[in-house]
Structures are given as structure tokens and as C-alpha cells.
């Protein structure tokens, strides 16, 4: 039943604009704890992420947005329901295949940057390729370093970079293996507004220039305004799924959802 639903959702997910589905979830359910203490972080979510779009996921704390992202990225397993990423059902993968999928098809940007302190900026940037045992293509690497604005700081350690610079390296790291989709979890949560703008512009350019698909979880309406599409979660369900507008429009949407 669930499998049939997933296939159904996947086949009919093509958007009117011609973008195809890269991630689809069907009846996604995630329960934490059991018995009386059980909490349903997600209570049945059907969502599709379209190729080449920047999708923002918003919602109050505890609305399930981080859980949704972890499930879509294969970092967590759903209690019920399925996730299909780039045509592959994640529940059918063993640990090794799932690891390879994360390595080759998914990029991550975290709130806390999460660069390895012992490696230089450039080594951090190419780390996904290093793990996969591949060499970066020179021109691609150069263009990434250019767009990140790393310049003469490529041999610096993360501790010698500002927060904004570290996060830009982290974004470049997520892009370097040209994954099917990049998941960004509150990428501007630890940054001031100037650094936030740089990181968001970088994500925007990744979508516009490299046709990268990006899913960004955020609290910040200003950050969400960089997105093409806005998904709002409330109590583990989708409350709103629409085009992302200006910051003011998004704030209005959030207000409407809350009331």
C-alpha cells in the first residue's frame, strides 16, 4: 500500500514548470519514544522536492522540519512511509549503499559549520571527494573557490576563518561532489546578517548557475525569501506549500499558519 503510494507520488510529481522530482516522501511518519511518552515528530508527510529549485522548509520549533530533513537525507529511518531520492527508495538500501548514497548524491550544510579543525579550508572543501577516493576536477574546484571567495585563505585552518567564511567553505564542500540535492539545516543560524547574506547568495547562485537542488531548513523569513518555494510544517504535517514570496509575505504566511 505504502509502496504503491510512493510510486504513485513519484510518477505524478512533475511540476507544471517542467522541473522533475528529486526527492519524494509518501506517508512519512516518525515517532520518538513509545507508550505514553511517544511523540509524533512527523504525522504523515507527502512532499516532493523539485530539481533545480531552492526550497525553504519553515515551521515553529518542534514542528518536525529537522526530522523531515534527516529522513529525506537518509540520516534517520521513518517509523512508516517512504523516501525516494533520485529514483532510489532509501528503505531498500543497506548501510553500505546508504553510505554511498550520502557520499555521492547528498550534500550537507550544518548550522554549526562542522568543518574538520585539523584540515585546511581547501582540504575540508574537497573532503567528500577524498572520502570517495576521487580527485577534484581542477576547473570545477577553482570555480568553487572563486565563488566562495576563499582566495588566499585556502591553506588556513577553520579556526583562522570567520564564521561566514567557514560556512561558505561548508557550502562549497556540499557542492563539490555535484550531489543530486544539498540539505542545509539552519545554515544562517550562527551568522550575523552580513555573513548570512553572503551564504544565502551563495546558495542562490548554486541553484541559478549550477542548477543545484537545495533544501534549506530555516527559522528566518529573510533567509526563506531567497527560496523558490516555501513549505511550512506545523505539528508534523504540511500546513502550507507555495511559492516563496518576499520576507513580508512569508511573515504573513507564518502568522496565518500559527493562528
Amino acid at each position, binding site marked *: 500500500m505504502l509502496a504503491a503510494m510512493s510510486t504513485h507520488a513519484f510518477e505524478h510529481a512533475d511540476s507544471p514548470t517542467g522541473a522533475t522530482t528529486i526527492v519524494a516522501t509518501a506517508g512519512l511518519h516518525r515517532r520518538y519514544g513509545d507508550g505514553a511518552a511517544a511523540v509524533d515528530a512527523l504525522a504523515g508527510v507527502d512532499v516532493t522536492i523539485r530539481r533545480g529549485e531552492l526550497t525553504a522548509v519553515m515551521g515553529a520549533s518542534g514542528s518536525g522540519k529537522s526530522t523531515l530533513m534527516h529522513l529525506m537525507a537518509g540520516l534517520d529511518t521513518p517509523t512508516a512511509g517512504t523516501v525516494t531520492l533520485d529514483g532510489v527508495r532509501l528503505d531498500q538500501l543497506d548501510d*553500505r549503499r546508504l*553510505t554511498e548514497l550520502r*557520499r555521492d548524491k547528498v550534500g550537507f550544510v550544518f548550522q554549526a559549520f562542522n568543518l*574538520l579543525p*585539523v*584540515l585546511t579550508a581547501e582540504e575540508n572543501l574537497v573532503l567528500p571527494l577524498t*572520502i*570517495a577516493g576521487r580527485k577534484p576536477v581542477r576547473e570545477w574546484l577553482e570555480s568553487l573557490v572563486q565563488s566562495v571567495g576563499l582566495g588566499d585563505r585556502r591553506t588556513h585552518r577553520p579556526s583562522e576563518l570567520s564564521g561566514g567564511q567557514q560556512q561558505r567553505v561548508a557550502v562549497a564542500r556540499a557542492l563539490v561532489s555535484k550531489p543530486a540535492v544539498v540539505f542545509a539545516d539552519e545554515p544562517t543560524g550562527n551568522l550575523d546578517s552580513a555573513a548570512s547574506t553572503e551564504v544565502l547568495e551563495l546558495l542562490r547562485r548554486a541553484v541559478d548557475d549550477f542548477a543545484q537542488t537545495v533544501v534549506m531548513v530555516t527559522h528566518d523569513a529573510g533567509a526563506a525569501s531567497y527560496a523558490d518555494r516555501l513549505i511550512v510544517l506545523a505539528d508534523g504535517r504540511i500546513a502550507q506549500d507555495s511559492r516563496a514570496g518576499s520576507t513580508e509575505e512569508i511573515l504573513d504566511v507564518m502568522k496565518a499558519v500559527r493562528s
Partner: protein
Amino acid sequence: MRQVALRGLRVRRLRTVLTAFSVVLGVAMIAGTYVLTDTVDKAFSEVFTQANAGTDVVVAPKQVDDAFDSSQRPLKEALVRRVRQVDGVAAAAGGIQDDVSIRNVEGDRIGGAMIFVLALQPEPLDPFRFVSGRAPGFPDEIALSAKAFAEEDLQVGDKVTVVGAEGARHFKLVGSANFGDADTVAGYPAAIVTLATAQALTGQRGEVDTIAVAARDGVTPAQLRSRVGAALALEPLEVRTGARDAAQQTADVGEAFGFLRTALLVFGGIALFVGAFVIYNTFTITVAQRTRELALLRTLGASRRQVLRSVILEAVVIGLGASVPRCSGCSAASRSRLRCAVCWRCSAPTCPRPRRSSRRARSSWRSSSGSS
């Protein structure tokens, strides 16, 4: 991944050094024990082999296997003449090994509580190489092993008093000698006198402890051993080749040092056991500190095996890095005899500050060489 592990070691230098240090401590004790005892064994082996170089066959009394009396009955001196008559014998001489005490004119003791007294042997049986003065030729002349001679600030011509089994006698110091290449006899000072004097000093007139035999050219030690053995078949004694005798003495000394080796290994084992916990804890903490880092690597697509391998690589680098230089450092030090700077007064003949008297090693040496 390898890069991450190795870079981690380099960047977190203090942690690496401290972890390595705990490994070093565990390994050093074990390695040091083996190096020390093996070095001692080897040194003794060299000394006995050198000293026995001219001796092809040794005749000694049979070990009495008796719980009440493990001493050996000395050989009659007449046996020496019988050995000389055996075909193939170039030279044979009786030897005396016993303890005496020596005092200088002020009445102070020379060379510790006990000194070996050894009878001078004719060429080629003589294990001594005189470094000053000459060999004693008269009943009132005595020579000392070189180390004791130098340490006690003695001069050729000094007067000394020797206290043996038959009371005190006055002697004139005529020289100092090395035993083989060593300036002590298996770590102990020795007094060298003529055979007759040695017999008189130790109360063994007409008796000897051992008989050293040299073969004529063309006669192998083994041949000579069976000939001497056949000639003395009815006597309660043992005939062995010089090489066997040296090996036997080395083994006896080694046995005497066995307790030291065991004691040190027990401590080393404890050190390693405790060290294992220290190392285990250190790595647990290390990995715990890196949980975030390892989780990140997993998220970025590193397989379980890759992560495990990077942690193991770190452990191997620390383990090898700490224990290999340690072991080779030890053996290099022992080769250059630097080890004596760190060992306490060990009894190795090559040690510049030997322990004076270990009763066990000493009595073992005596029982192998024979004494009354």
C-alpha cells in the same frame, strides 16, 4: 581518511605525545628487562669463553646430589699427573677457586667482603693478561684483578694481608691482571697466587678444585674429553670440554640472574597491564572527543570501515611510534654499553659500576667451578 587520521595526530600533538608516553612506559619496562638480562648473559658468556680460550677440557668433581650436602669433594692433586700422561694432552694444571678476604696495611678491607682466590695457571691455560707488574712467582707474592687494583689505589710493591681458611698471611702485591678482556672475574674482584699458595690459603693441600687441560695440536676437544674420561673412568668426576664448561658457567650465572629477570618481568607485566588500561582509556576519551568529527565523516559518506580504519591507524601509529624507537633505543644503548648509566650496579663484567656481591650469583659460580 588516512590524511584525517595522520593530520589529527600532528595537530593534536600534546595528546599524541601523552598517549605515546603511556605506551612507552608500558613497553620500556618489558623491553628493558630483556635487554638488561640478555646483555648480562652475553657478557658472562663472553668472559667465560675468553677465559676458557686455551682450555680444551675441564675436569671437575661430580656434583653430589644430596639434599644435605651439595658441596663437592675436591680432586686429589695426583690426578693432575695422571691426566698429563693421557695421550694428546699438551698441558694440565690444577686450579683453586675459593673466597678470601684481603686487607691493606691500615687493616681496611680491599674489594669488598669476599675475593676469589685463583691459582696461577701455566700457558696456555692461563686466563689472565697482566696489565701492570708481573705474575706472582713466590709463595708470598699476590696479584689482583685490574679493577680492584685500580679502585683501591694500590701500587705494585704494596703489602696486603690475606685472610683465608687457615688464618692470615702477609703478601707483597706484584701486579694486576685482566681475566680474559674483563677487569673482574664475572663481576667480582680476584686475587691471583701460585697453586701451592692457593692450596695453603684455602686449606686444600694436595687437592685441587678443577683440572684444566690443553690439547696437543691435531687433537680436538671432544677427542681429548673422551680420552681423559676413559683414563679417569673410575673416579667420581666429570670431564667436559672447555666450551661446554664456559656454557655451563654462563648458564649457572644466567640461572642466578633468573630471579632478577622474573622480578623485573613481573613489574614490567604490571606496568604493561596498567598501561593497557591507560591506553584504553586514552583512546576511549580520544574517540569520545571526536564523536562529532566521526559523525560528520559518516554524514559526508565515509563508511563504517573507513572511520574504523582511521581510528585504528591512529592507534597503530602511536603504538609503533612509541614502542619501536623505545626497543631499538634500548638495544642500541646496550650495544654501546650506555645502559650502565641507567642500570643500577649490575653485575655485568663490562659494567663500570658493578654490584659488589650477590651471594646467589657467587655461590652458583662457585658450585660450577668447584670449591671445597
